[in-house]
């Protein structure tokens, strides 16, 4: 069905695509407020961003953080960027939750060209066939796996919320502490106290 020319062009296309995949990194745990220019600016310190594609959530029925596929100039930059973000907590958007970066994989791209040489054989199996039972069980297994996956995701999201709550409380506590200090200093109470206790303030 395919002429050799078509096949050659498809191969080339896939090869180009693979090149692109190598240059692209996948950033996760992004705030929904993060936009393309923000990512570009963020990565400007270690890499030049050619393209940013946000991943739209079609399948996960929960409120998950954003993710994006970021295409850089070349593979070296991609490696450097991923290393940077794995070794150090890299924060986009100034808030404590760091982003997570990995190298992109071909299946992450929605608009990918067909992989040449992929097995696409199919079979029809009917009730009477020997394999039918097996396939049915396999199907059920797959469905069960799917729901297990979802359950795990939900569990993880809940954990994240817990952590966030914890951190927020700690932060509030600290904030109040500093506020109190500031108030005390600003309205002179501290000087009086120091005088009272005979403690030198300038230390």
């Amino acid at each position, binding site marked *: 069905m395919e002429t050799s020319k078509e096949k050659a062009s498809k191969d080339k296309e896939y090869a180009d695509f693979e090149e692109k995949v190598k240059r692209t990194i996948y950033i*996760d*745990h992004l705030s*929904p*407020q993060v936009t393309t220019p*923000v990512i570009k*600016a963020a990565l400007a310190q270690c890499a030049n961003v*050619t393209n940013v*594609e946000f*991943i739209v*959530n*079609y*399948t*996960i*029925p929960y*409120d*998950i953080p954003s993710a994006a596929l970021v295409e850089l100039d070349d593979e070296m930059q991609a490696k450097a960027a991923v290393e940077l973000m794995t070794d150090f*907590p*890299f*924060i986009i*958007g*100034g*808030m404590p939750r*760091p982003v*997570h970066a990995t190298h992109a*994989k*071909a*299946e*992450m791209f*929605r608009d990918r*060209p*067909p992989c040449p040489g992929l097995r*696409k*054989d*199919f*079979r*029809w*199996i*009917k009730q009477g066939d*020997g*394999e*039918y*039972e*097996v*396939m049915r069980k*396999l*199907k059920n297994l*797959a469905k069960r*796996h*799917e729901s297990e*996956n979802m359950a795990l995701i939900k569990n993880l*999201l809940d*954990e*994240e919320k817990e952590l*966030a709550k914890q*951190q927020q409380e700690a*932060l*509030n506590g600290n*904030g*109040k502490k500093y*506020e109190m200090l500031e108030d005390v200093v600003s309205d002179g109470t501290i000087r009086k106290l120091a005088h009272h206790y005979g403690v030198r303030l300038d230390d």
Partner: protein
Amino acid sequence: MDGSNEQIQFSWGKLRGKGGVKMDTQFYESFTLDNVKYSLYDCVYLFKHGDPEPYIGKILKIWEQNRSKKVKILWFFLPKEIQKYLRGSVVENEIFLASGDGIGLADINPLEAVAGKCTVICISKDERNRQPSPQEQAMADYIFYRVFDVKNCTLSDQLPDKIAGLEVKVLLNPKDELVISSPNAVNVPLNPNADDGLAATAPPPHSAVKEENESPDAAVPLSHPAAKEVAAKLPARVPLSQSVVSKEEQKPVAVIPISESVIKKEDKKSAAAISLSQSAIKEEEKPVASTPHPRSAVVENNAKYTQSQNAHGGERPPKKLKLSQEATVKNMIPAVTETRPLELPSRQADRSKWFKISWDDKLRRADEQGTLVYIQNLDIHFAAADIEELIREALQLSCTAKPINHPTYDDPNNGKAYAIFRTKNDADSAISKINSGLVVGGRPLYCSKGLLKVPKSSGTFVGHLSLHNIKIGQKQREEQKKAVSTSHCSQPNTIEYDLALDWMLLRAKQEKKFEILHKHHKDGRKGFASIGSKTAKAGN
């Protein structure tokens, strides 16, 4: 097949002289691109691939060397680009001429990057500058009277003697008053008269791949000055999604043969990314029937122009076609070339593909009509074309499909895709057939109808903490706003470092959990596969 003819009209104007090291460079005084005449020192728009907003520049030099055509552009700055150095007030439509030396003064660009002309009037009181008439000033797209020195980063209203090696005099207002035609007078014949180069009449959009392709409702694209007017009027240059104003997208070409088919230019990539306003455009075009002849179409357009101008308020002049075309063509090729050769007989009927509709919209619409099927348990390496081909071979039905995945959370064993069939019956029969026993590469597929309910992502983000109860002064509030866009690697001496580490720890734990689960699944499946083959052998 004669694919889309991307030849945008081009011709050289007056010769200027030869130069270059090997005397192989030919300089010119003017050129005509897409039926618009550009001369030296004209002000033009340039689009950079990837940026939704155009840059404004003045043509300093035009030449051709080794068959590549180039222009040297002296840049203008928008107020927001030099906001840091701006002091005092900014006049409406004011831009700033670059001066001095260094990066940002001027650039050499391929000639094809020029996307249109604009009128920039100098209102400086400098004696070398011919004072513009009030009408000229009002009609101009932009005005300038200040220069920005790119080296010292300073603003000044004193014009220097030379900029970019040229006498400043030639960069100021030209001797004759520009004949600025009102953008609404685009009813004027479409042929931008070559002589009347200064009159920025409606140059057919760069995208006019073949003129027949112009949609009657290409309100935004057609009149370039119109588009500019919109731009000038709306100082809030809303950076829109990249695809938004791609002219080529807006062409419901029903009758014209697919050769230059608009399909090629469907920017599916962007569709997913940001498509909200895009869908608004799409809605508008759909009902409009297409007429082959562009000229009459244009006249029609201009009537609609004002109305759609309001509707499209905030739209930017179309992106540089050539560059985005390449991107979109590349995207479409996998999906389209697969289906086209096999579907020749049914092509005429497949009009749904000719309408530029974003994938999101397609999904929603299909869901409403009952033609949407959600297929699971595919191999995750399948691409859109693979899936479509598979469906065609297995079911003899045609559909459009896209694999969907969310790399962070998705099960690598279970690939999913949405497929949109042509009719509800098709979808129903597909579902029943697939569910009853289609096995692909050893994996039994299963599917269901309709769109998964996915909640819209809330604007807040778990883990973004805020300090409450702090009296924040005006300045600090601004800084906080800016803080959203600051990014850095956290240093170990701040509180946020500890917090950040907590998160990293949590994430590492999560990854491990996923790994374990997915491995478990994989093993489970393998177990089955072996059982399956055993029974098959036993059965035979």
